[in-house]
């Protein structure tokens, strides 16, 4: 029992981080209908910049720079590449971002090499005790930050002019532009946000209990794909829930590996995708995604 709770809590905190990255995916998708496979390497970029700079600048300035770098990179992808073929079909756009991902990931992992770069977070490997459950402080921080960001995101989305422009554009781009909403700006904003969220995700995914920034961190964003899909690709709320579910599932399957060994060991990596497939079988557009209906 106690173990279950420990795992559950651990999973939720991990999931909170996934939620942030997933939220990035969804934001970009809503605004520009792009499945952004480059999210992974943007995440890596953010983490890399922080890890490289925290010694010279100090941690918080480094974080700021990292976020900016990731956001800027993300925006560039949109402005320089995506914008030129806005009306291309999903597949084409997705593969375009895959190309970008290959470029970024290759260069970054070349720079990182064998190193395991310390992200230099002040909470190091401290541990916090919550109702008798010991959790890495960084995860608690991550949880809080995620909560704050998600809440802030929701508020901005709901109440600010930007949010309204964003939602209008997402629902009906043409009409939105008839209302004087500048689609390109909305898009750029969305990409910037996604980049920043990725960087935050990167920061926490690479600080304790993970070892630090390695060349392979980028693939962690792959774990967010099932989160996004089972949440529903165009639903921010879904992304958050999906992230949490995936976090819990992967931690639980790891924790109960002994009991689940009949399914083959090393389930941690597959389970999220299995869950995703099941959900899709029952709800073809994810838990909270809007069905696209066929028109004549």
């Amino acid at each position, binding site marked *: 029992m106690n173990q279950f709770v420990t795992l559950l809590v651990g999973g939720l905190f991990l999931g909170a981080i996934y939620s942030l990255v997933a939220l990035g995916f969804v934001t970009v998708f809503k605004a520009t209908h792009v499945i952004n496979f480059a999210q992974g390497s943007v995440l890596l970029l953010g983490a890399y910049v922080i890890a490289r700079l925290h010694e010279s600048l100090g941690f918080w300035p480094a974080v700021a720079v990292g976020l900016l770098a990731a956001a800027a990179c993300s925006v560039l992808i949109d402005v320089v590449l995506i914008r030129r073929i806005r009306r291309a079909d999903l597949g084409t756009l997705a593969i375009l971002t895959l190309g970008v991902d290959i470029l970024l990931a290759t260069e970054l992992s070349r720079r990182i090499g064998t190193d395991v770069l310390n992200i230099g977070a002040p909470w190091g490997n401290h541990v916090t005790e919550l109702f008798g459950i010991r959790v890495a402080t960084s995860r608690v921080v991550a949880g809080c930050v995620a909560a704050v960001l998600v809440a802030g995101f929701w508020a901005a989305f709901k109440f600010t002019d930007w949010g309204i422009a964003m939602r209008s554009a997402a*629902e009906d*781009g*043409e*009409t939105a532009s008839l*209302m*004087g*909403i500048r*689609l390109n700006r909305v898009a750029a904003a969305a990409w910037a946000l996604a980049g920043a969220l990725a960087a935050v995700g990167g920061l926490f995914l690479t600080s304790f209990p993970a070892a630090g920034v390695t060349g392979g961190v980028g693939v962690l964003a792959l774990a967010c794909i099932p989160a996004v899909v089972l949440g529903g690709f165009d639903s921010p709320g879904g992304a958050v829930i999906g992230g949490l579910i995936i976090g819990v599932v992967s931690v639980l399957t790891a924790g109960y590996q002994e009991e689940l060994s009949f399914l083959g060991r090393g389930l941690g990596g597959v389970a999220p995708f299995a869950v995703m497939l099941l959900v899709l079988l029952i709800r073809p557009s994810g838990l909270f995604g809007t069905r696209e209906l066929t028109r*004549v």
Partner: protein
Amino acid sequence: MVEVAVTAPAVLDVHDLRVSYAGAVQALRGVSLSVPEGSVVAVLGNNGAGKSTLLRALSGTLPAQNGAVTGGTIAFAGREQPRDAAAIARGGLVQVPEGRRVFSNLTVEENLRAGGLAAPDKAARAEARAWVDELFPILRERATQRAGLLSGGEQQMLAIGRALMASPKVLLLDEPSLGLAPKIVERVGEVIREINDRGVTVVLVEQNAAMALSVADHAVVLEVGEVALQGTADELAESEAVKERYLGVPRATSTAERVESHAQPLEVEALSVRFGGLAALSDVSFTVEPGSLHALIGPNGAGKSTCLNVLSGVYEATAGSVRYGGRELTKLRPHRIAALGVARTFQNIALSPRVSVLDNLLVARHRLMRSGFLADGLRLPAARRERAEHEARVREIAELLGLTELERPVGTLSYGTRKRVELARALCAEPELLLLDEPVAGMVRDESAAMAEAITRSRAELGISVLLVEHDMTFVMGMADRVTVLDFGKRIADGTPAEVQRDAEVLRAYLGGAA
């Protein structure tokens, strides 16, 4: 070309505007129009006459439909119109799109805020907001509801209110009366006048001539991308030309003598369809006699296409029955219905643009051909023979409709030609019953005459029954054996063309209170 007699200085001046879609289709062929400050100008015309294209050109939304201005100029407030839609809107030229297109997942409040984003400053917003509340008290009550839940009329009000929030100099209205009940249409008319009284110039695109002419100062009638008529609203309201355009005068019926038909009767009984709250069709009944040409007419949004979609199995009926011969169609999946020999065309062409005409036509032979992945993939003699036979037949039918260049990708053909390919494909299915959804929408008069010719001929030669959905009465009157008229999803008349034309209900539906 004569310009509209200008009283006030023109706030919007369109000169010799030419627009084409994807390089292929010429949608506007040199339209000139000048809108005097503070006036209401109505733009009339049939589907595809170029009304919406004109508005798209004005509001800068052509690129979205990969259309482009190929010639001419648009001057707004004396300056060259910017290309970017958002910039135009912020410049004070705001459009209310066809079919309202409110942001249905946003609340009414949020929709209005979205409109306000284009307003010059806070003060303007506040002022506009006050005005909107005064104009549409209903929106105030519904402020926190999702816009999607509003009724059609309320949505139209919201759409207009949303546009007013941008405090526009010129307001473009695209088919504001579309699918609205007469009372609401009148209300919309009043609203337009009130808006105009506040000094906002209005450009009104309408099918509902009556409504448009009742509120407009000036009007132009577009026909296939050109200005066919123009003048003051009153002149046009009186002109026979307009009457004749909107109420076909009966020509000598060119119906070819009926051949013996092997088709069976199609019996539609008490058919109802509702989408969520609103009823698209309620309790509609009619029968298509074997070998007859039956027309289903009514103004836009009357539920004609919905009806066709139920008959072909695309939509589910909420209640009622559709029997073809002995078979109940409402329970069958579309491809099963097709297998019974029921073929259809689509109003907005549903061909494969990158595929050649020939292959598009051969698709219709699908149910008649047998060869599969193995036989075809390995080019077995049987498969080749089969293809040869069917290709021969398809070429005959293409001949019948005067289609040449069967190797060209459909996407590269002109609109009119694609419409004919659409019809040809349906005929290639060797149907007993043919369902045609607005076959002449957006065609030049002689083009549509040719189409009418083609339909009657093929019907005569193939001995099939035809159910023809059309909003253009003129076209129907010439050829139909029997006409059923829908309005707001209800059957308001059923009979021979002559009878229907004299029907008061029908006149009202078409010319509104005016007639």
